[in-house]
């Protein structure tokens, strides 16, 4: 038996994850590294995107990858072949990366190189259009992929992911001539849930759209590396 009491907390439900994400972010800022959280459903082309972008940008920027996968090292092995440092993070049963997992990946990365020498750190999340949207990892920008083979309704069915994204990449556009899908409709649906996100249409097979995507990346890198907090870091 007890006297009934009540405390008002007003805490974020994910405060524990957010604290760790803030910790990761402080490291990224101190290292002056742009961190991207790359998310999509399975098979939308995250690894193919990274293969092409890493190959195209490796002479321009120093980069590394934290590669999230539930069980295998298959994607990590593909990216290692490009010649970029890759740290695999196997999540087991978890369907997303959280800030603690990324923090563990950063420690492993530090055993291989000095992160302060990097310009860009890619985090390839686990293939999933739901969970990764809610779990911050300390990233500067969220990038969501949506392949044209997934249909035009996905931004409306999984709106939180597309609402949260700073950039949406519509991938596999080389397949459009073979599909009964309207890419304009895909983009319209994306903008209905997130009017201000950047949207690019890409094909990792043909390379179309990658110049504009890389220009966007360069602008984000400049933005992050010239913020006053970083100058004084």
């Amino acid at each position: 038996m007890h006297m009934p009491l009540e405390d008002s907390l007003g805490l974020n439900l994910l405060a524990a994850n957010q604290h760790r994400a803030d910790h990761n972010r402080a490291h990224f800022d101190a290292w002056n590294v742009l961190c991207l959280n790359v998310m999509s459903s399975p098979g939308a082309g995250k690894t193919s995107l990274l293969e092409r972008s890493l190959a195209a940008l490796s002479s321009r920027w120093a980069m590394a990858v934290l590669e999230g996968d539930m069980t295998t090292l298959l994607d990590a092995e593909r990216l290692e072949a490009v010649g970029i440092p890759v740290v695999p993070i196997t999540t087991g049963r978890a369907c997303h990366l959280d800030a603690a997992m990324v923090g563990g990946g950063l420690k492993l990365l530090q055993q291989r190189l000095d992160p302060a020498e990097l310009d860009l750190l890619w985090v390839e999340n686990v293939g999933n259009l739901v969970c990764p949207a809610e779990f911050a990892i300390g990233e500067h920008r969220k990038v969501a992929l949506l392949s044209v083979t997934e249909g035009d309704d996905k931004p409306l069915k999984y709106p939180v992911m597309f609402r949260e994204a700073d950039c949406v990449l519509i991938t596999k556009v080389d397949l459009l001539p073979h599909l009964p899908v309207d890419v304009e409709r895909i983009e319209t649906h994306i903008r209905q849930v997130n009017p201000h996100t950047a949207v690019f249409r890409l094909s990792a097979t043909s390379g179309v759209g990658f110049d504009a995507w890389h220009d966007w990346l360069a602008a984000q890198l400049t933005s992050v590396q010239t913020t006053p907090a970083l100058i004084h870091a």
Partner: protein
Amino acid sequence: MHEVDMTRCLLLSMHEWKQQHAPRVPKVDRVHLEVGSFTCVEPDQLVVTWSDAVKGTWLDGSELVIESVPLVGRCIRCQATYSPDAADGFRSPCCQHPMEEIVSGRELRIRSVAYGFETASPPPTASCPTVAC
């Protein structure tokens, strides 16, 4: 599936809250959450994972009470609030404008904790024969 990880985060926050009362251990009756409808959380699933997670712990017997917060948008053209709906493409019904401003619906908040401290009943006395604590 991510409700398991959300429950883990919630338990960590509850543990930190418990530390504020140390060395006493509060007996928690209810934990009140506000969960927006424009989140990736399924409230029923969260209640189930909570019930499983607290068994045998200091939170055993506590109830997770979830208040759903509806998605409300504001049209930036006419400033009217509305209930964005996927079937309508989340657009404002007045101007068909995309969902620009979200007023509510993104909440994932631990609002409050109802609790108490176990106290032994005092021995009955002549002046207070029916005291109940």
